[in-house]
């Protein structure tokens, strides 16, 4: 495993929430979302209601960025925390995969069962074109997974 993946995997596996950035009226629009990751780490999944602004934003402009990090709000974060930005394009998950993806998502987030199974909730998929990893305060490395 490369040093990059040694940092990336725990972030994607252990962190529950990420900050999703979409575009609204030309400005960045950020939302906190629960996410899960595909086995090959090329896709990130999150659930949203179809009435939300982020859903509306993504329908207009599907390019998005999700920040996932390991900060603990201690001063040691400066040298111990890592953060990754996942840059890519978001689409709704197709119905044939939905059951499997929802199951896997709920394994990580059992508290969201009612939310995810609501009729108005949509499972979204961020196809990652590039991960930008920052660790040890200023070390930045990029990885573009082949989709």
């Amino acid at each position, binding site marked *: 495993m*490369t040093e*990059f993946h040694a940092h990336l995997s725990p972030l994607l596996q252990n962190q529950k929430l990420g900050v999703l950035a979409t575009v609204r009226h030309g400005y960045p629009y950020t939302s906190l979302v629960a996410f899960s990751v595909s086995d090959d780490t090329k896709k990130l999944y999150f659930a949203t209601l179809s009435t939300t602004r982020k859903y509306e934003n993504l329908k207009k402009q599907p390019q998005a960025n999700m920040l996932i990090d390991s900060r603990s709000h201690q*001063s*040691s974060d*400066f*040298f*111990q925390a890592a953060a990754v930005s996942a*840059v890519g394009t978001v689409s709704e998950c197709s119905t044939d995969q939905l059951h499997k993806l929802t199951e896997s998502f709920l394994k990580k987030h059992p508290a969201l069962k009612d939310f995810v199974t609501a009729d108005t909730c949509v499972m979204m998929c961020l196809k990652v*074109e*590039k991960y*930008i990893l*920052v660790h*040890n*305060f*200023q*070390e*930045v*490395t*990029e*990885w*573009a997974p082949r989709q």
Partner: protein
Amino acid sequence: MSKSVYPLKNAAKLSERKTGAKARNLGILHKNTFAIPRGSIITTDAFQQFINRNGLQQRIGMELNRKAFHDMRLEEIQDCSIRIRNMITASPLPAAFLKTLEEELNQFNTDRLAIRSSAPGEDTEQTSFAGTHDSFIDIPKHRVPEKIKQVWASLWSKSALVYRHKTGLDMLNNHMAVIIQELIAGETSGVFFTTSPVNNYESIVEVVSGLNEQLVDGSTPPQRLIWEKGNKQDLEKSCCTHTNLLSPQQLNTLFNTGTKLESIFGKHLDIEFTFSQDTLFLLQVRPAATAEQSKKQSPPHTLKQLQSLHIKITEKHLPLFRQTAEQWKNKNLDHLSAEALLEILRNRCNTFLEFRNIYTTDFIPFSEGMRLFGNLYNDTMHPDDPYEFINLLSKNGNLLSIKRNKKLMLLAKNYKKHTNSTIPQALEQQLQEACQQLTPSEYLGFSNHLTFDNFLNLLKKLADTEDQTATSKSTLQETFLKTSPDPKIAEQYLAIGRESYRLRDDDDLYIGALEKQLAACLEILRKKLPDNFTCPDSKINEWLQNGYTSFITQKTSAPPPPTASSTKARQIKGQPSGPGKTTGKARIIRNYDELFKLEKNEIIVCDAIDPNMTFVMPLASGIIERRGGMLVHGAIIAREYKLPCVTGIPEACNRIHTGDTVSVDGWTGIVTIHRPTL
């Protein structure tokens, strides 16, 4: 603010966490009616309050985590230590603590004090920390506050960091108490090893005249007495023949004290002592050092030690190196038989190995002089940049490599005037000679592609470049000397720092000159020997078979071959080794030939720079080096040419490619690679 200053005699009543091991042991001695110098303890609470008030815990944490510790070279660890030391010595002591300290110091009857470290956990059988934390003697009262901070800072001295890393101890969360004692100017001082470090059936006393410090730092050879442990008669016998510094009565007192102390502490001990008017004062007692610990010799680190090393280097080694290189160069080898050449090669090889040994034992330790001056400068000036002192070390281009480069620049300007006309014969000869001087031997690990055309191309590029070498800042020197409590001593430190800086760069050139002649001899011999020749000398045989392995190029090893990776570095963190910021095209230098491909304003990216390579520096706009340190050759030459420089970038040559646009931020140590991106 909790109470943080106590009389030393009360140390046994306090926890070791507050007093540290050394102070607690002294408290136990006092409790058992042994004479110890009068003193006070500054507990670890004072240290903790100081660290917290100044927000130093976080800053030290950042510094220690700049890079994975196992990836750091010793020099980088030393740099890390200097930065932390400057953070601590430049931070103010709390006013309430200073008031308490002043009151405490007023109770001392003398202005000659000893300030000693006392860390919890040190001086135990498992973790001795021997010699890693600082202590100071003969300090007047008004300098005690600064010395306390210096003792605290020694928690992160290079040796302390290395020791903690090796033993798996925490490097960030440490504490330190400080002992302040009246200095007892005894007539005779020494260390009593109740059990020899090498066997358990003998006892040893090492003794010197006057203060103990000369014995501890190894500057004065002691008189040594060894006797069968517990056998007083044996001691009496050996005392008559081996020492005139201790009387039989004093030895008897020591013998009895050792026996009592072993019974009190329940272990073998090393006891530091001094005799003043026949009273035995115990200065320190700790569990006996192991043979391994006692074998450990600290490198020269005092001004006096470095001054005598300097004399040895400049008056003995360098003339010998120069003279030998000259003799080798002047000897015509072409007409000699293979047998005669082999004999010469054998002799040269032996001489070179001897010189290489001198290089390792004397030249490398002398580089300590720069940091010794650096610490004095930082203690005096408390600068924001802990490496500001380097500006004083450069003395207007007195490095050999800078002198060589200046000559080359002049030659380039002269050559430019004649590029469209016939080159005068005298100039042609100068050009040929200069080209010859820069040509490395093919056996030095280079492929010897320096053609005269390549050399002339280099001159054309140099001719269009301005000489940008830095001039030393005389105002900085003036302010430093004016601020120093003892300007005469400060000047001596500066002189040693400057010589250490100069020789750090020049020494490789001296060794390089010898190596070139050694390789030349090998080159001629190889041509004269039959293919299947085997030399009885295995080293020479290896060179004849596989080519010469350069000491210099081994030291500055070639970068590893590129490895395939799907990840791309965007920003890499290293050591900020030359201030400034620049953006330009990267030029990876993997071998000597690639130096000549360097174009004006490109950024050199290499594994390690040695002074034999730095003649292209006037063309560069920045330096990125794998080998880390503030005082490595790359950093020194970068400062001379005012080039932004970042060192200590792991796998620099693989993560950056020739032609990449890169930014070098020599203030923060960050290299950014600009690639088309999302």
